[in-house]
């Protein structure tokens, strides 16, 4: 299973979660089979508009099954939901490592509606 988490740096599993999904600095792409990790720079972060949609596209292109993030705007939510990707919410202060542990222990809440309204 491929888990993607927005990350504020590319420094391994101890990196902190980036509170913004669309404008996260990096995405950590984690393979839960062998816990291998790849960091992808989020180009959408530097785009003037539609960062949430762009980031969702990147995650879908990377083959995400699950995304753990602090906040999903409405457009990102709709895009990821359309791709059949499961979303879970977590507090922004966590590290990637603890996010994955929480997911595996089943303590994360599945996101079924957008967590913030996004634009207007």
């Amino acid at each position, binding site marked *: 299973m491929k888990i993607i988490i927005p990350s504020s740096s590319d420094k391994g599993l101890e990196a902190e979660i980036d509170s913004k999904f669309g404008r996260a600095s990096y995405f950590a792409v984690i393979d839960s089979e062998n816990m291998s990790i790849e960091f992808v720079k989020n180009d959408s972060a530097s785009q003037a508009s539609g960062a949430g*949609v762009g980031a969702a596209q990147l995650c879908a292109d990377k083959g995400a099954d699950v995304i753990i993030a602090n906040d999903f705007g409405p457009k990102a939510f*709709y895009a990821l939901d359309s791709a059949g990707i499961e979303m879970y919410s977590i507090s922004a202060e966590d590290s990637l490592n603890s996010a994955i542990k929480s997911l595996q222990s089943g303590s994360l809440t599945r996101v079924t509606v957008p967590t913030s309204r996004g634009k207007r």
Partner: protein
Amino acid sequence: MKISILSGKGGTGKTTLAVNMALSLKNVQLLDADVEEPDDYIFISPDIFDTEAESVLRLIPEVDDDLCTACKKCVDFCEYNTLAMMLDQVLVFPEICHSCGGCKIVCPENAITEIERELGKIYHAVSGEIDFWQGELNTGEEKSVPVIEKLKTKIDTDKKVIIDSPPGTTCPSVEAVADTDYSIVVTEPTPFGLHDMDMVIEMLQEIQQPFGVVINRSDENSDHLIENYCSENDINILLKIPFSREIAELYSDGTAFVKKMGSWKSKFQLLYYDIVREVNNNEKNNSN
């Protein structure tokens, strides 16, 4: 004569100047082009939302799934992330679309057509001597320029035209000012007012627009902030509206102050004719 009124930021007195000037003149047209927060109507025609509005439309893409081969060229082309490809299907996010038409051009399968979507509305009312038009951007939409363009098609050059422009120095302000004969920059005598006025003036000079300054909430102890700047840069100060509790109280209730302080009408008439004279002089000098 077309005069645009603008300011560096909201709340400096743009509305105050626009509505009071309009109420002081005859055969006048007032266009509220501050389409994100139009509020001239409160003073001119509070019931304007009961009237029928004209739609401003724009084009957004629609994808024919039968023709689409999921090549993703449209998604990759779009600068605004309006499109996404999820499970071989194109999703469209119309609010962020700029209506550039690029996706339709790059689609090799002719799977994209464009459909109309309402971006905003134009309202119209006649109140006394004022032919009043208001542009409004729909909630959730972001591009005000097409609404302002449409609003400006209502201009009647046989009338004295006053355009209340969006505050700031971004594209909508530039659009509102375009093709007007003269601009009035409204400011207030504070460091904020000076700073924001400086930015507007930079924008106006870039597009070579003639302009003058009106000081709102004028105060003899601090007007020098604006006066020094204007004399150093050879800018005309056209009028001062004093710092007055009475004006602020009338404004708070939605009353234009010329309605209670009638002597101000002649000052706004003088302001208008001063501007006419300056524009005519400029034209003469330019043709010589």
